[in-house]
């Protein structure tokens, strides 16, 4: 008993220091630190992102690695930490990463972690009076709108929902001129879904000529939707737009079936275009249309999806962004003269930040991605719909 008291802290201390004292590698390695939720209900985000990052790193290394600023070649090494989708733990993880020789961080998966995390970064680059952390972060999953502008060090490669839903509603108007009204359903206490309904769908639908006739709200872990669906039934809207994650999306769809609410068209939240929705309620979700920035429709996208599956994760609209991020980072590392030596870590980070900030467009899995001055992306996307238990591409606005 007593001995364990001496051993336990020693083990911990060793484990903590272990990160800092990495052995000297024979070959130069470029470390990219991924992090995200691998615990709790959103574990699948972290699992997928990690698998995609590792698959992308293998893919790059097999192709000869990256060319460094002084002519040497480097191999990419990926680490991945769990932040439990918790703000404090995310901050801890970022500080831990900042203490290693990782040149760039990829993550987090949760918007409620991303927001405080970007807050502790230096706001304006080069501002000596700002003691924030100086570490470039490139986000793949946390999707809540407009976060990258919090700091000059934050970049994101997430779909621009505002643009996607604008085009989606316009397309629906053009295809189905007879549809007039939209009714919204929103998961009110989840940052992302709430934002997407109130600030995206509800704004974009009237612009396309639809009339929003009402909205129902529920909470993330609600299980009974009878009252909300009754409101929905009364509105008799042509289109029902549901801004919610798979768990409650399925609950609402099942209740709609029960109360025989059959809108002419269903629109869903980007995040619900994943396996989870189909696993939970394929039958009820049949026909739901969702804009998504990933579908294995191009050869590059198929390769990414296959390699990621080999690593035990699925490339979906969130995690596929991590593949694109890895490819973009390879390019930035090569063009900005990163040397990946132990004594140039801070310089390398600054070079990568500046390189990312200078990008105007990047190559994505579905086509060219535009980058904004705020560090956000405008990604190409397709409309998918649930059909016979899987997601099928309905329309490609880019073609």
């Amino acid at each position, binding site marked *: 008993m007593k001995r364990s008291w001496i051993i336990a802290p020693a083990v911990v201390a060793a484990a903590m220091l272990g990160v800092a004292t990495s052995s000297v590698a024979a070959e130069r390695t470029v470390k990219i630190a991924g992090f995200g939720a691998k*615990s*709790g*209900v*959103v*574990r*699948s985000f972290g*699992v997928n992102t990690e698998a995609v990052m590792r698959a992308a790193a293998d893919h790059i290394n097999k192709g000869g690695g990256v060319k460094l600023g002084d002519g040497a070649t480097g191999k990419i090494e990926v680490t991945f930490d769990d932040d439990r989708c918790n703000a404090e733990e995310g901050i801890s993880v970022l500080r831990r990463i900042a203490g290693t020789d990782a040149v760039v961080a990829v993550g987090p998966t949760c918007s409620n972690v991303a927001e405080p995390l970007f807050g502790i970064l230096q706001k304006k680059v080069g501002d000596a009076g700002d003691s924030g952390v100086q570490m470039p972060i490139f986000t793949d999953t946390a999707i809540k709108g407009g976060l990258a502008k919090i700091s000059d060090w934050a970049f994101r490669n997430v779909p621009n929902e505002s643009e996607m839903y604008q085009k989606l509603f316009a397309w629906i108007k053009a295809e189905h001129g007879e549809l007039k009204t939209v009714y919204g359903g929103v998961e*009110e*206490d989840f940052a992302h879904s709430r934002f997407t309904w109130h600030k995206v769908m509800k704004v974009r639908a009237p612009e396309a000529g639809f009339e929003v006739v009402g909205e129902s*709200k*529920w*909470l*993330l*872990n*609600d*299980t*009974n939707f*009878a*009252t*909300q669906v*009754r409101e929905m039934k009364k509105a008799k809207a042509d289109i029902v737009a549901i801004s919610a994650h*798979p*768990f409650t999306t*399925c*609950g609402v769809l*099942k209740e709609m079936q*029960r*109360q025989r609410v059959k809108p002419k068209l269903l629109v869903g939240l980007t995040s619900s275009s994943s*396996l*989870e929705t189909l*696993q*939970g*309620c394929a039958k009820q979700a049949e026909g739901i249309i969702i804009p998504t920035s990933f579908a294995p429709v191009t050869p590059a996208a198929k390769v990414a999806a296959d390699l990621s599956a080999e690593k035990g994760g699925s490339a979906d609209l969130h995690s596929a962004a991590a593949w694109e991020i890895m490819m973009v980072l390879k390019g930035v590392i090569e063009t900005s003269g990163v040397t990946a030596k132990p004594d140039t870590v801070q310089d390398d980070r600054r070079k990568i930040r500046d390189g990312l900030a200078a990008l105007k467009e990047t190559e994505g899995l579905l086509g060219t991605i535009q980058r904004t001055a705020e560090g956000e992306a405008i990604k190409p996307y397709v409309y998918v719909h649930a059909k016979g238990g899987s997601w099928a591409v309905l329309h490609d606005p880019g073609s």
Partner: protein
Amino acid sequence: MEFIDIVLSISDGVLFGTTYALIGIGFTMIFGVMHKINLAYAATSIGGAYVSWAISTLVPLPAILVFLISAIAAGVIGWLVYLCCFRLVPLDTPLTTLLATVGMLIFIDEVVVHETDGMPQPYPAIFDDVFFEFGEFGLRGDLLFIFVLSFAAMLVLLYLLYRTRLGIATRAVAQQPMAAQLCGISIERTNASTFVITGMLGGLAGAMIGASVGVLSPLLTLPVTVKGLIVTVIGGLGSIPGAIIAGLMVGAFENLFLALRGVTERDMYVMLLLFLFLTFRPGGLFHRSALRD
């Protein structure tokens, strides 16, 4: 807001409240026998439902059998909870068992997350396509089934408690552990059997919750725990009929506030009402053990 809407909301709430009632019965029984809170109880219930789901993905089974497996699995988990959190811990430290069960709750939840990646899983249901309609008024068949089931469960429990040797032992231990021991009743065996029985009831409740929602998710555990505790105290600690009535009431009030004030304020009013209720009627509806803790 028309009158019929409010009636419909409340009737939906009452029916959905039966799942709260089932969980409340388990909490209240453990409390009645051991005077301890088992915060891992809702996790046990959902855990049982997950085990049955896992088995049903391997072999296709009729829904009734899946529910039965859930009950058995949760009985086993309940016994494990007893072993890990109560058996070895001194009985005079209530805070210790409280925290141990919190650890257990987190553990069970994380095992589920680990196995499913936290993704919602479809759970079979019976009578879920039955929907009774009387003009504008409608009732869900599956919830009516749960309603009947929870009354059946209550009757079985009351029979067990008042008509069997096990029940006599359980009540003896609940009332006077020392005297019960002197009469040759094994306190440990009685406590363990309480956990197994309530665990089985919980497994049934977990299955019913899964069936009524249609999917299982680790998201269910925390709200079900909180609702279960609320139902237990409103009903009056240790009172099984109290738990049932309280479950229905919580469901009704929840839906009433939802219909009147919207979802963002719903829980705020429910919590305020609960706080006031406990302040003015600290013993719960069925005032049996007001000043015992």
